[in-house]
């Protein structure tokens, strides 16, 4: 495996994301796999942010801690990230960006701003110069990046300025290339892979699933989902609406779903907290809905731009009273896409709310994936066919059935009227207060839980050969776990992985079976209390002992996790 880790540091407003994106996508177009994370403070200008890419000729979707190349767009980035460089790594910096203009071989001075100015750009074009310099340093085919810039800024003046700045950086780096640095990135082959974030995958999944309405209230890190969809209204024939608050957001989506339209909302934990009453309403009214919770560190406002997996227990139990729900926790962009389809199908088939748990790490990270396979996308519904409904003598919205699922119709689908209700009600949807109806209808609704569980494929499990250790996780850490296990196994330390995606209703039997004779089990979670570990203990009786928990708002790094598991690094 040939790989390179590049970190671009700078202040908010310096265009880290577009630089990082360009860099990554150029390598992807050249046949490489790129995984990238974004690290930002909660501010619009200033502060210290970074964008970090890992480029490999093998499929990867997790990060390692230490960069081979640091591009420092400001002084703070030099101070923060120079010490992180691997030996043999290199720092690209502007004199202005640092007081230390030393002669150390790992330092490569590139006059970002000066070159930007020379090529007719402004300070913000410093990032294009820096990009060019990296490409130059790596002897990478610049035409790929040039083409990309032309596509991205099609028809805008920015094309020329950016390309000029890019070229300037490139030429400078080729000319002044430092001796010590010999790494190169070659063009492998022209491949057709997607380079996209988890949020984009989620949004695409919704479109593929025939979602036609999304309402949301802005909240990091979820806003990128409605942002994407709002920009595809015409193309994707979908309506998006920014609501006045999260309560309105979820209730609008509820209203549209009731009207027969697949609908969704997305938010973060704090916004989800405001949707809890409506979650319970979805349970009572049996209106399907998909809610995406993009987790960030809590409690309360917490660290608004950072990552955490701490809403698991919350979403499993949120809402007063008892009702069925599904919780999915995709492990990467690909799973995010297919899970959204599955979420809409499950919501629709079982007439329940489905919560998809993402987090800042999954939402904001860039993945390299094969184009999504639309032949795998099915459309499963409990909506009655209109002709069937028209032929029916009568219609009961909440008909008691073996499965607990009643035939669904929407208003004005036929002459049959449709009653939807938040009270306890009879089969037709009239409020009811007597004990017998209550028991019947409550049982009907709760019966769905076991039916849903039966469709749960169970946790994913991977092992090769005899394994002395199993690492277990859920949601966005999937790729970290897999690569960690892979690395350990390569070192002869065979490690199995168990990963939970469809986590609720908890796949009790499958989990028990998988874990029952595992001895050395390590649960890895991005939270402080070990929620999955507790869930496993609660539902399988399996009380594994080791937990590696990270709750500083930052994602796990594969190399660090390997060391932690080997016991060499304190978590």
């Amino acid at each position, binding site marked *: 495996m040939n790989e390179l880790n590049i970190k671009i540091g700078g202040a908010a407003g310096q265009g880290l994301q577009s630089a990082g994106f360009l860099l990554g996508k150029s390598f992807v177009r050249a046949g490489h796999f790129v995984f990238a994370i974004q690290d930002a403070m909660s501010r619009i200008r200033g502060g210290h942010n970074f964008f970090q890419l890992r480029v490999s000729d093998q499929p990867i979707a997790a990060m390692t801690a230490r960069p081979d190349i640091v591009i420092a767009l400001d002084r703070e980035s030099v101070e923060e990230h120079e010490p992180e460089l691997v030996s043999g790594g290199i720092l690209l910096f502007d004199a202005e960006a640092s007081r230390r203009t030393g002669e150390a071989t790992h330092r490569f001075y590139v006059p970002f701003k000066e070159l930007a100015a020379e090529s007719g750009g402004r300070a913000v074009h410093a990032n294009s110069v820096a990009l060019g310099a990296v490409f130059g340093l790596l002897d990478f085919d610049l035409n790929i990046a040039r083409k990309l810039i032309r596509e991205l800024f099609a028809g805008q003046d920015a094309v020329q300025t950016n390309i000029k700045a890019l070229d300037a950086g490139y030429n400078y780096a080729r000319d002044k290339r430092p001796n010590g640095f010999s790494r190169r990135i070659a063009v492998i082959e022209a491949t057709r892979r997607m380079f996209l974030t988890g949020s984009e995958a989620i949004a695409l999944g919704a479109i593929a699933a025939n979602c036609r309405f999304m309402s949301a209230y802005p909240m990091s890190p979820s806003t990128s989902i409605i942002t994407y969809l709002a920009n595809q209204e015409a193309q994707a024939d979908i309506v998006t609406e920014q609501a006045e608050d999260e309560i309105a957001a979820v*209730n609008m989506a509820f209203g549209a779903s009731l009207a027969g339209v697949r609908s969704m909302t997305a938010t973060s934990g704090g916004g989800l907290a405001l949707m809890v009453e409506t979650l319970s309403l979805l349970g009572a009214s049996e209106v399907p809905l998909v809610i995406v919770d993009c987790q960030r560190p809590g409690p309360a406002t917490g660290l608004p731009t950072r990552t955490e997996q701490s809403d698991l227990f919350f979403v499993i139990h949120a809402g007063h009273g008892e009702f069925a729900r599904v919780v999915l926790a995709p492990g990467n962009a690909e799973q995010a896409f297919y899970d959204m389809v599955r979420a809409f199908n499950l919501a629709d088939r079982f007439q329940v709310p489905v919560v998809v748990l993402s987090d800042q790490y999954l939402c904001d990270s860039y993945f390299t994936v094969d184009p999504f396979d639309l032949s795998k996308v099915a459309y499963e519904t409990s909506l009655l066919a209109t002709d069937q409904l028209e032929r029916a003598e009568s219609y009961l919205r909440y008909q008691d059935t073996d499965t607990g699922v009643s035939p669904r119709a929407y208003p004005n689908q036929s002459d049959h009227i449709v009653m*939807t209700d938040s009270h306890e009600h009879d089969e037709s949807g009239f409020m009811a207060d007597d004990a017998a109806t209550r028991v019947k209808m409550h049982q009907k609704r709760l019966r769905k839980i076991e039916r849903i569980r039966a469709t749960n494929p169970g946790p994913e499990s991977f092992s090769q050969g005899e394994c002395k250790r199993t690492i277990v996780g859920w949601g966005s850490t999937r790729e970290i776990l897999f690569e960690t296990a892979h690395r350990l196994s390569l070192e002869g330390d065979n490690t199995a992985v168990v990963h939970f995606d469809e986590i609720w209703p908890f796949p009790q039997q499958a989990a028990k079976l998988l874990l029952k004779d595992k001895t050395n089990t390590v649960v890895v979670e991005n939270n402080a209390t070990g929620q999955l570990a507790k869930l496993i203990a609660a539902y399988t009786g399996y009380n594994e002992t080791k937990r590696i928990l990270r709750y500083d708002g930052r994602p796990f790094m594969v190399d660090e996790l390997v060391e932690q598991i080997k016991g060499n690094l304190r978590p």
Partner: protein
Amino acid sequence: MTNGNEYEKRTTAWCPGCGNFAILDSVKESLEAMNKKPREVLLIGGIGQASKLPQYLSANSLCTLHGRALPAATGAKIGNTSLTVVAFCGDGDCYGEGGNHFIHAIRRNIDITVLVHNNQVYGLTQGQASPSSDMGFTTKVQPQGVRSTPLSGPALAVALGCGFVARGFAGNKAQLISLIQEGIRHRGFSLIEVIQPCPSMNRHNTFGWYKERIRDLQSEWKHDSSNRTAAFERALLWGETIPVGIFYRSEEGRTFESRIPILNNGPLVKRPLRRREVTEKLIEAFI
């Protein structure tokens, strides 16, 4: 349940003498007069005595959460623009718990009609003050009397630029029926506040109390309902006189739906299942 071709009334859980009966009758008669079939109509309530109305008339109905009728109505209308959506809220439901939605639903100007049954009290929860209760009104939870200024829903609506702002009275069905029809006909958000005596829980603002004070905007003030300032001033009147009729009407504002190009192609719910090409195209953009 019932076949969606004619309206049936159902047994209610309201108290004898409640103003809600007249409102229910007026809604039924209005819809019938307008030849709206029950299947085309979606009646939405939050939670409260007023909000039970949808259960009492055989049309499509939703009884949702307290305060949340308006966002649900908005979503339902977006989902299926072929529906005539009418919401029924209590004063607590709409101006209290749902106050934020009230503001923003008006701003959106989506084509729904909202009846706020204003009995100046929380009926279903057995008589606490509502946002429109008179200052000093005493209840079990306000034994020293209400200490906040009552709000005027119509005045707020005028301030927010609502294109149809009216007030009716449960004691005047003829006028109420005409207001409901005009409200439904108005393209965009229509607010009809209905003065609804609650003999069980509000012994202060009784039928007689209202009757004495109610004045028709037209006959009393020769009110020009295109004059927003006059509408504002009269919407604030309360006490000696209580104006009823149309405070403000303007057909100028474009509806929310009309601003969404894709809604011109008919109801969203009727869109064919054709996602593959769309998604493929979007996937392409990521390559």
